[in-house]
């Protein structure tokens, strides 16, 4: 029900700009007033009264239950309904030739919609009580099952929900009159339009007074109407259907007036004048006017009838209107209307753009004021209005460079009359607010609905507006302001993927020739270049740290998105962001997390598995990447959020279109963890001090091992785990099949831009790492392995196998050497005796002991001596040894050098180490 309902009212507000599609209204009414309608039915078809009455009463209760979201009762009522229907079935088949009555179908449709809506609203669903959610499940299932029998009827119903002919009489009447009125509108509109067209051109002095009179009349007239609509919104619960209905229509006309172009406005006022008279004639009998009149507030008169309209007068009026701002009793809606009217008047009298801009600006702030609660989005109608006003103001500003608009201009220094105009106001703040409002609107929509898409279409307009403001500030604006507006632009740009960039990267000459042929003059800037330009300006000119930090983060994000891995990495390293991101505000930290996630994905695409793992590990290890990326709230187990806290957290959420796919993220992380971890496990199978590279990956492995029966993999995680198991025995083919297959492609890999390349890269890595795992695992079984046969087994080119094995030998991971004439790997692995093995373990433990001792001492001493340094270095050294010491043949000739190197380490390396350390500290968003 609510969907249609909402649609209905939506369309109403939109329809104010066009001619009204009467159908919509009809529909909305049908649902709204179906109660009356039942009664009507009962009267008409009295033979089946009993059954139908029974049905309708149940439907009524269902509707009531739905209203308060009492799901268990809805369920029970639904069961009653089905029973009643089966009872009524014989009657129906007799009376209606077996056609299911429409009201019944409607009820089913509404019920289905209701369930779908509740079901879709995940957040809401989570908050349902246990009882409620349980019955929701059952209800959904039952309704679904039940509805199957009525599929055809339902489909027909949905196609034309309003085809019902037996709407009640009153309603029909109203409709007719409304349609008439609309017709009249247009009729008179033309007539008057012709008349009015002459008016502005006519000599002002003579015409003005009369026109003002007209205006005055108008404003007085419209008073009756405006408050009506107000009261309507408040009294929507009213049971007085007729009035409600009326007001709907009335509201439409007044709104129409609000929004229409200014030039045509006076025309319409004339029309309306006439129309209203007619309407009065028509509808006086129904007596609604007397009911409402009590609420009417006398709207202040715009100007005296014969006042000379000039700049000071308009300004005085403006100040008068604006001074009411923020007061308790002020009717905010009225204010907006008044301002619009003032704008029209000032335009009629051509009082200059400065005044126009001032009024525009006041309108904008009035619209912002309309909504009292910050956390709630503004109304859609206002939003559309706001966008329009904002754009027209910016266009005015751009067209008139002699107007200075600045918030630093004091009220008394404003200048409207002569050439260098000075207006107080800040378009920057306005556009920032506008942008925030837009985000709020988006967050309000259900991301999977069409609403969201239609809202998202406004993004183009928002970007356009921002672009206008950017232009304005590029002409005149301090660095600080430019930085701020650039940041806004960046924030609308950074998450968008521009395929042009990759195309250019692949073939540099391609766009050049294309451009030469098609558009020789304007080589289109790719988004990366735009980004570069904006960010560089901010880096150079910004003096608040926050804007720069955000710009850097967005810049990195954008680079990472377009596979500029090195640039992105260098920016991360050079900015030292990891060091102080913990001190940043939550939204910057969210951006940081998003950046890291994307950087990880980029590293993965660019074949840097290790880096990908590093980037993602701190996001994944907490197990709540969703929360860290602000893509949804997780239910908390220990303590419930307070409403306040929940509100704050909801404000931080990212709008849906900016989300990073979490499954992709997790999959990339797990696969890179697998590629690193499995060979490592194989190499250090018997090592007492083996470390885990990835905790999350281990958890997955373990949870699958705990299962007594492992079926074929279904989810992404199961696929990775199965692949890991295959890799453990060096079976690359199985492993590759588990990672790259149809299911995984649709789930994960196809989300990448160049998915084919990524898959090839993956298979290549799987082959290599499987080969390594194979060598580690089975080297103690062989004395020699032939390289060609290895290359055959792993379908790798011979030099590649050679290179992999050489690397393993050089790194002393594999105790073997190559025999060139016979092309074999000869193993030198010597199994230690029991005693030796124990001795080695013992040594490990003693080393541990010494380590711990030193650590304890360090901790007690603080920074005594440069002991701390020494300890660190030694620990690092031990870790290094540990990496390779596990292999029994392992021999460390270059201990010394290793140690030396650890002492020094150059800059980038240090940074990377820093980064790693940093990554251990997880950047959680605080729960305030």
């Amino acid at each position, binding site marked *: 029900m609510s969907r249609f309902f909402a649609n209905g009212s939506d369309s109403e507000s939109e329809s104010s700009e066009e001619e009204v599609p009467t159908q919509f209204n009809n529909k909305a009414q049908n649902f709204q007033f179906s109660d009356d309608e039942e009664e009507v039915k009962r009267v008409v078809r009295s033979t089946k009264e009993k059954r139908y009455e029974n049905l309708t009463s149940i439907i009524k209760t269902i509707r009531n239950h739905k209203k308060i979201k009492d799901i268990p009762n809805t369920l029970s009522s639904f069961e009653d309904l089905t029973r009643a229907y089966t009872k009524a079935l014989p009657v129906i088949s007799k009376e209606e030739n077996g056609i299911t009555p429409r009201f019944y179908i409607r009820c089913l449709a509404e019920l289905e919609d209701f369930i779908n809506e509740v079901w879709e609203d995940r957040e809401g669903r989570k908050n349902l009580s246990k009882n409620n959610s349980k019955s929701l499940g059952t209800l959904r299932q039952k309704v679904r099952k039940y509805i199957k029998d009525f599929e055809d009827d339902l489909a027909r119903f949905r196609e034309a929900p309003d085809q019902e002919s037996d709407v009640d009489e009153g309603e029909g009447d109203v409709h007719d009159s409304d349609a008439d009125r609309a017709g009249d509108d247009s009729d008179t509109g033309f007539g008057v339009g012709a008349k009015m067209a002459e008016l502005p051109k006519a000599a002002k002095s003579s015409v003005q007074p009369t026109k003002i009179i007209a205006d005055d009349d108008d404003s007085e007239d419209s008073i009756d109407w405006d408050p009506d609509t107000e009261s309507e919104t408040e009294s929507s619960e009213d049971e007085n259907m007729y009035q409600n209905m009326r007001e709907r229509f009335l509201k439409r006309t007044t709104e129409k007036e609000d929004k229409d172009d200014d030039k045509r406005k006076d025309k319409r006022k004339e029309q309306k004048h006439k129309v209203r008279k007619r309407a009065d004639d028509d509808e006086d009998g129904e007596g609604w006017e007397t009911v409402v009149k009590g609420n009417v507030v006398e709207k202040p008169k715009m100007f005296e009838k014969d006042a000379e309209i000039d700049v000071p007068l308009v300004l005085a009026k403006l100040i008068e209107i604006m001074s009411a701002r923020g007061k308790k009793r002020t009717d905010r809606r009225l204010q907006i209307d008044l301002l619009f009217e003032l704008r029209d008047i000032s335009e009629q009298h051509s009082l200059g753009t400065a005044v126009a801009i001032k009024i525009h600006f006041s309108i904008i702030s009035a619209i912002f004021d309309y909504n009292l609660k910050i956390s709630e989005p503004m109304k859609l109608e206002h939003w559309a209005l706001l966008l329009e006003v904002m754009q027209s103001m910016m266009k005015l500003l751009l067209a008139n460079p002699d107007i200075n608009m600045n918030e630093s201009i004091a009220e008394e220094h404003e200048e409207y009359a002569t050439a260098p105009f000075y207006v107080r106001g800040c378009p920057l703040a306005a556009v920032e607010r506008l942008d925030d409002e837009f985000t709020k609107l988006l967050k309000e929509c259900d991301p999977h609905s069409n609403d969201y898409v239609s809202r998202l279409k406004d993004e183009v307009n928002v970007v356009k507006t921002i672009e206008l403001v950017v232009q304005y500030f590029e002409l005149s604006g301090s660095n600080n302001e430019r930085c701020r507006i650039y940041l806004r632009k960046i924030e609308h740009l950074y998450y968008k993927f521009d395929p042009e960039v990759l195309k250019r990267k692949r073939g540099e000459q391609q766009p050049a020739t294309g451009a030469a042929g098609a558009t020789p003059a304007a080589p289109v800037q790719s988004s990366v270049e735009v980004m570069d330009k904006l960010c560089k300006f901010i880096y150079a000119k910004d003096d608040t740290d926050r804007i720069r930090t955000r710009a850097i983060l967005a810049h990195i994000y954008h680079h990472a998105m377009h596979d500029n891995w090195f640039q992105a990495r260098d920016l991360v390293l050079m900015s030292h962001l990891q060091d102080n991101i913990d001190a940043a505000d939550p939204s910057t930290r969210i951006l940081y997390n998003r950046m890291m996630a994307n950087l990880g994905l980029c590293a993965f695409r660019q074949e840097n598995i290790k880096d990908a793992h590093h980037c993602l590990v701190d996001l994944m290890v907490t197990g709540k990447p969703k929360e860290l990326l602000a893509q949804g709230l997780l239910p908390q187990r220990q303590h419930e959020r307070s409403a306040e806290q929940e509100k704050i957290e909801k404000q931080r959420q990212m709008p849906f279109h900016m989300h990073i796919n979490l499954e992709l993220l997790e999959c990339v992380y797990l696969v890179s963890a697998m590629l690193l971890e499995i060979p490592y496990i194989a190499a250090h199978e018997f090592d007492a001090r083996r470390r885990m590279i990835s905790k999350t990956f281990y958890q997955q492995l373990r949870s699958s091992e705990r299962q007594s029966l492992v079926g074929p993999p279904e989810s992404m995680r199961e696929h990775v785990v199965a692949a890991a198991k295959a890799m453990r025995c060096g079976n690359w083919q199985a492993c590759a099949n588990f990672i790259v297959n149809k299911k995984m492609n649709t789930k994960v890999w196809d989300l990448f831009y160049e998915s084919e390349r990524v898959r090839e890269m993956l298979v290549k890595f799987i082959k290599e790492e499987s080969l390594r795992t194979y060598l580690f695992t089975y080297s103690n079984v062989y004395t020699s392995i032939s390289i060609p046969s290895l290359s055959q087994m792993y379908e790798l080119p011979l030099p590649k196998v050679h290179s992999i094995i050489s690397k393993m030998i050089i790194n002393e991971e594999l105790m073997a050497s190559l025999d060139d*004439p016979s092309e074999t790997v000869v193993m030198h692995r010597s199994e230690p005796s029991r005693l030796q093995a124990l001795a080695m373990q013992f040594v490990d433990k003693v080393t541990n002991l010494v380590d711990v001792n030193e650590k304890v001492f360090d901790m007690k001493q603080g920074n005594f001596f440069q002991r701390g340094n020494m300890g660190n270095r030694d620990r690092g050294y031990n870790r290094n040894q540990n990496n390779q010491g596990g292999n029994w043949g392992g021999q460390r000739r270059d201990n010394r050098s290793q140690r030396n*190197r650890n002492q020094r380490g150059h800059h980038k390396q240090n940074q990377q180490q820093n980064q790693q350390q940093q990554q251990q500290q997880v950047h959680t968003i605080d729960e305030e």
Partner: protein
Amino acid sequence: MAQFDLTRINCQYLDRHLTFPLLEFLCGKEIYNQQDLLEYILDTVNKTNMIDYTMDTRKRLNLSQDMPDELVQRKSDVLATLKQLQNEVAPIMKATDILKNGESMKDSKTFVNALQKDYNFKVEHLESAYKLAKYLYECGNYQESTSYLYFCLIVMSPNDKNYLNVLWGKLAAEILTLNWNTALEDLTRLRDYIDSANFSTIQALQQRTWLIHWSVLVFFNHPKGRDLIIEMFLYKPLYLNAIQTMCPHIMRYLATAVVINRTRRNALKDLIKVIQQESYTYRDPITEFLECLYVNFDFEGARLKLHECQTVILNDFFIVACLNEFVEDARLMIFETFCRIHQCITISMLADKLNMKPNEAECWIVNLIRNARLNAKIDSKLGHVVMGTQPLSPYQQLVEKIDSLSMRSEHLAGLIERKSKQKNQESADSWKYY
């Protein structure tokens, strides 16, 4: 070949006078059009006061045999200015004599005092001495310029606005007079100054970039330079950073220095990390050679790259002197890596990889074995080299592992002892007052 030529980039970071040797070197290499090069030189020379050199270049360009009037005029102007400047400095000229004999006058303060007392020395004199030195340098009279600069250095306080310029000038003059020992000294002094002075980050980066380029000249000519270049470029984070951000092409010289420095083999690993990191901004045959050899273990690729390296080095002014050393050491590197991986190699294959004839290669290996650098035997019947493998005993491993333990524990014990003693003493001290 021009694609690997760095002269163009290097010249951006060198003083005008320092570029002449590079450009002259290029003239002999026929990489670029001779005519263009000479014109470029002429262009550059015109900006200096070296009239004779200008003339010379003009002759080489076959412009004209006679000196144009404008040049004659300039020459006389230059001489006049020189004269004037020399006159200004004359009063303190004698002072330099004391400087030469008076060993005791090393301390700059006492020296300045003595100057003020005996020669009526004023700050303006210093200024003019600096000007003269600059002018002499402009004229190409580097030798004399150095002596004035030396004087300036001693008298000037490090806070003087010209101090940095003097340092740079001194270094340039010493390089141009091929006085490598003093050049190295000046280099260190300049480096210390840059590191300690309060530059903004950008300025410091710029200064360092310049210093890096100038120092390459010194390092490849000074006998100790080969160690120092590694020390400075690879292990001083500030300079490594400057290389990475400003001038990754310096990696070529760093790589060359590491390759020809047999005693610093362990620097290789660090170098390779840096090369890999920067591979997207800079690569040339020399860095690629190292990458092939130590990252991909692609011996065939390394062989090809080595071949390219030879031409690159031959055409690079900075490192042309190291060509033979480089080739020899690179071969050895290939061979060493080979031996570490293989236990049995055919000589013919080896010869192939090393760009040698089989006979030569055998001879080379024999020499290596004889010098005990290699534990291997040659099986001449099959034409194999068989490596002596050393089976690693667990005992040795064990010993290696516990090697440092006793040392560390002892150290720790010592520290604790000292600490406790200190504490005891403190407590004893505090008791004293009661």
